[in-house]
């Protein structure tokens, strides 16, 4: 069944200035201006909100969940994370050796 409704707009909500906009849902609307009004009613009635973005859903290019391989790591990549380095233990060991 084809979608006979108005175009779909995805809604992004900003809790406070300086925060990232976060996707919260979507609305159908005849145009962007109306989408903002509806988004405000739907998504900004209770949560703190300082700004809304609406983006036509068909303007969003998304990756395919079926292509999740694109995010997979072939190998262990802990070497590029802070938690991959146990410096505390090494310093303790070094201090212990120094006091021997």
């Amino acid at each position, binding site marked *: 069944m084809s979608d006979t409704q108005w175009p779909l707009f995805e809604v992004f909500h900003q809790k406070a200035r300086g925060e990232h906009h976060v996707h919260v849902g979507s609305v159908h609307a005849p145009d962007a201006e109306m989408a903002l009004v509806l988004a405000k009613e739907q998504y900004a009635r209770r949560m703190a909100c300082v700004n809304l973005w609406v983006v036509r859903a068909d303007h969003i290019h998304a990756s395919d969940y079926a292509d999740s391989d694109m995010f997979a790591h072939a190998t262990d990549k802990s*070497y*590029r994370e802070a938690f991959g380095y146990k410096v505390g233990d090494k310093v303790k060991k070094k201090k212990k050796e120094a006091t021997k």
Partner: protein
Amino acid sequence: MYGSTTFTDIKQSPIAGEDPEKLAEFEAHIARGEKIEPPDWMPAEYRRQLIRMIEQHAHSEIMGALPEGKWIPHAPGFGRKLALVAKVQDEVGHAQLLYRAAETLGKSREQMIDDLLSGKSKYSNVFNYPTPSWADTAVIAWLIDAGAIINQNTNAEGSYGPYCRALKRICYEESFHLKYGYDSVITLASGTKAQRAMLQDALNRWWRPIMHFHGPPDKMSAHTEILMRWKVKIRSNDEMRQEFLDTYVPKIWELGLTVPDPNLKKNPATGEWEFSDPDWGEFKRVINGDGPCNAERLGIRRLAHEEGAWVRAALAADRQATPIVQ
């Protein structure tokens, strides 16, 4: 990676010619602790200072990859090589985030890159010094990035939304650089006599640039009260340098290393670190283009830009071919 790079120069009043009503609204906004976003009204001097600051930060990230990237082929072991590749990739990525944040203020990326290549824009002084040994990369990753994190955590408290958001992500990645650098330093410090000597040499070489890192002393820097009020500047250079010394001097000593400054000590009465004057004349000379590696670094950057021209052209070209596999 980033440090304060210039002596601030403000010749006229930063609010000359601004609409007092709009200015009052803008200042009230910042005083409430709220961020400024790109469509908001802002004073011309606010915009100018932020572009200068974010642009220099972006250039520093991209130029900082050069002295370290040089060591990728010579890394001692595969693990270190992988980590250094990841770190250099991060730094270049940080530049992209920051150029984008600066663009929101109205200066194009092309203009920023042109200004870097022509020598008009500055970047952090420290990247104009050579890295003759592997230990230099360890000291950079540990102590320069430690200084950068202090600076970036401070700037993340600033008033401009896009810059703060970029810094949040950058600080997350810098925490890996710091740990990786610390780990490399500990390995060398726990190693053979030759490794320890190499590390101490590197630390001796880098100490003065590190003392330069947060910029000239407050008494020499002409920063105005209003830049602090607008949260363009958040903490003074001296405050950040003191925080660096507080945190890292004990860690350096703990590893059995010495700091090449006989006057370095914490004054028990004031709680402040005292240290030798790191020669601010030298700082000024290097930032203005006359450091040991300024020409070499910019030369490599220019070459990379020219040799990358075909990539930019290919990305911008109309796509005519259809994929073979549908």
